[in-house]
């Protein structure tokens, strides 16, 4: 079944309430993505989700295309502007870890509400900056809003079923990331527009008020119209006892002690964390002599390719997941990251040819951004209990990788730095580092019930064993582990078609799926006899 299509009819467990407009699984998560629908709760949450993430990316990187104007206005040196780029990413590390806990505790709706409403004043505050210290501090604080990524992936994992979660996560992630590319075009236009009525040295200040207002508008829409979970809002579900209150410390411990998280964090660090958006415009300026606008537009293509490349990675992850199970998903991560590293190296090697550089740029975008999408096709399965924390820790790993990469390869200028590395050499060596990380990052990705890159599953281990083991014996005695039982059952689809075909408990496709523990009752379907003699058959 293709993940994205207009669903006309579907089979659903007759015991489930028919209040949903999309087919849902036993956890009421949507089994399909209807892109042109705003039906509640799933698709409305989907669209508000990517919008919320998009605006944070737009405001976090809003300063980048305006740097010449800002540098003239507040007299910034180049290395101060570079440092601000690094701290934007560094600021998100702690924020992303904290946001995982906030998601688990308050729910994604209020997590977005807190994040967007409290970072809106910070974005607006950029208008009051008058020196380099203010600029660097502001960019660090605005960088905290990038923690929206955690909420984005968490909410999407809560709303969409395992068979489409990779696609859903990657579309919302990709469309949100594209904000970094769109801002390179939109912010200069806004500034130029305002500069018709105000001097340019003030126009850029007013321009920052626009994304700040957008933060508040989108926060209002999310708080007013969206829903935390398919079954309702967090606080209502906790009040009625349908959802246990989260234990943040216990969940943080469960996330930190899961070794798969570290492998995924490393992969994400060297696919997303590269933050090539920042480095490409100066590279085009210095290496090919483009002016600022043209260099910015060319560099923006990398960010904009997130619209298609990241979803492509998620779709590939889902397709391979359906066919080969979790092992297929892990192979997609490995191949994408390795080929991404090779493309980046070749882009650095071909620095004399603009055509080849652009070709390898597009290839790099495809593989690296695709890897970002496929990594978050694996993340929802790492932990059921600490989904938010794992989302947060993996993305924090991405941010740490970004800081390291920027510091090693792109921070130093000839005037100010311990060593001088030509930018095309930076790309070359960074590509080699990416391939190395592809090998060591994918190694810990092993699930005992599904297998890993080269190893098969351990016989006799089930999904319930894995997900229930996240709860302490005391919690299991209280029955708290049963909250994961539906998810464990649904995640059996990660066994791959071959194993599923041999499993009588979980038929492969096209049949009604009963709740765990219930008998499988197949509704008999009346055969439709198509012949011209309707009256003789008794059909009037």
């Amino acid at each position, binding site marked *: 079944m293709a993940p994205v299509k207009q669903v006309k009819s579907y089979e659903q467990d007759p015991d489930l309430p028919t209040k949903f407009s999309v087919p849902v699984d036993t956890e009421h998560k949507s089994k399909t993505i209807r892109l042109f629908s705003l039906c509640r709760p799933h698709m409305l949450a989907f669209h508000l989700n990517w919008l919320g993430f998009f605006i944070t990316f737009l405001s976090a990187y809003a300063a980048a295309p305006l740097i010449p104007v800002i540098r003239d206005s507040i*007299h910034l040196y180049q290395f101060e502007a570079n440092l601000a780029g690094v701290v934007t990413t560094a600021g998100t590390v702690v924020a992303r870890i904290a946001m995982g806990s906030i998601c688990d505790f308050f729910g994604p709706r209020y997590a977005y509400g807190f994040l967007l*409403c409290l970072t809106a004043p910070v974005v607006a505050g950029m208008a009051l900056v008058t020196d380099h210290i203010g600029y660097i501090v502001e960019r660090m604080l605005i960088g905290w809003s990038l923690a929206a990524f955690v909420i984005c992936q968490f909410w999407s994992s809560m709303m969409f079923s395992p068979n489409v979660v990779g696609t859903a996560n990657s579309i919302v992630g990709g469309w949100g990331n594209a904000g970094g590319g769109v801002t390179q075009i939109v912010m200069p236009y806004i500034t130029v527009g305002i500069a018709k009525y105000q001097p340019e*040295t003030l126009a850029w200040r007013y321009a920052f008020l626009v994304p700040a*207002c957008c933060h508040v508008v989108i*926060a209002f829409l999310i*708080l*007013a119209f969206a829903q935390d979970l398919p079954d309702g809002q967090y606080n209502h579900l906790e009040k009625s006892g349908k959802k246990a209150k989260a234990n943040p410390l216990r969940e943080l411990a469960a996330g930190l002690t899961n070794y798969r998280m570290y492998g995924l964090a490393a992969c994400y660090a060297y696919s997303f964390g590269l933050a090539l958006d920042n480095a490409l415009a100066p590279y085009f300026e210095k290496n090919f002599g483009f002016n*600022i606008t043209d260099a910015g537009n060319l560099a923006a293509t990398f960010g904009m390719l997130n619209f298609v490349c990241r979803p492509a990675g998620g779709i590939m992850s889902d397709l391979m997941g359906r066919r080969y199970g979790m092992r297929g998903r892990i192979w997609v991560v490995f191949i994408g990251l390795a080929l991404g590293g090779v493309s980046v190296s070749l882009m650095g090697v071909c620095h004399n040819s603009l055509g080849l550089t652009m070709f390898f740029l597009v290839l790099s975008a495809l593989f690296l951004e695709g890897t970002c999408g496929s990594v978050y096709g694996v993340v929802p399965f790492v932990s059921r209990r600490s989904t938010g924390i794992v989302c947060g820790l993996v993305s924090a790993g991405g941010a740490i990788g970004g800081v390291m990469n920027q510091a090693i390869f792109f921070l130093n200028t000839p005037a100010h730095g311990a060593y001088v590395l030509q930018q095309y050499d930076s790309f070359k060596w960074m590509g080699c580092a990416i391939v190395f990380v592809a090998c060591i990052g994918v190694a810990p990705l092993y699930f005992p019930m599904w297998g890993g890159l080269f190893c098969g599953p351990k016989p006799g281990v089930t999904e319930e064993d894995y997900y229930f083991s996240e709860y302490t014996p005391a919690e299991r005695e209280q029955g708290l582990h049963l909250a994961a039982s539906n998810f464990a059952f649904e995640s059996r689809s990660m066994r791959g078609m071959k194993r599923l075909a041999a499993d009588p408990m979980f038929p492969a496709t096209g049949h009604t799926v009963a709740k765990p523990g219930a008998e499988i009752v197949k509704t008999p379907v009346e055969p439709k006899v198509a012949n011209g003699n309707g009256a003789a058959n008794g059909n009037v």
Partner: protein
Amino acid sequence: MASAALLATLALSTLCAAAAAPVTLTSLTPAKMTISVTSFMVEGHKMAGKLSKSADLDAPGIPTLQATVNSNTEKDAVLVGYSMPPAAVPGVTSTSLYACYSKPSAYDRPWRQANDILSKDKQCQIVIANGLPPHQGNATWEIDENVPQATYFVRAYSLCGQTRCAFGNSTGFFQVNPIHNLPKEVIGATIGVMFFGPVVLTVFFLKDRVIGKTR
């Protein structure tokens, strides 16, 4: 008839060739114009036009002017004079004066870099005045809020028709500092926008968590 056509073609091709070849600063050297900064207006007071030999920002003794927000207050200004003997370059029709970034101020800023090809040059972009008398004259440059912090010198280009045919640089540098304070409108608008986010969050939080709980 044929010879006239041939001559016309030759003349046209010469003109095209002349137009196609970019005018460079090297082709105009040596500088034939003399530029002098007569005086500075700083905070309404007249100061002597003594320029600094050093182009470094905040060099000791460098005359410093302040960019001003567009308002009724008197702007800081530079009064510049120029002269050139008419025999030095024939055919001069007018003069233009530009404020140019010094080399230290253009460092690491590609949008201020000098280029020998004048049409691509970004060093001298700020126009002080156009269409000035060809051989001698003066002009005033009022420092408005768009002028960035840098050290500057003044250059004059003589125009022979549409092309530049001579130039001159001032023999020292002066500094412009940016505006001190932000205008009240910027501060007011920013605080207004900052206000909304926390208010929206508080309203929803109270509605859901406090009022919702008491029901």
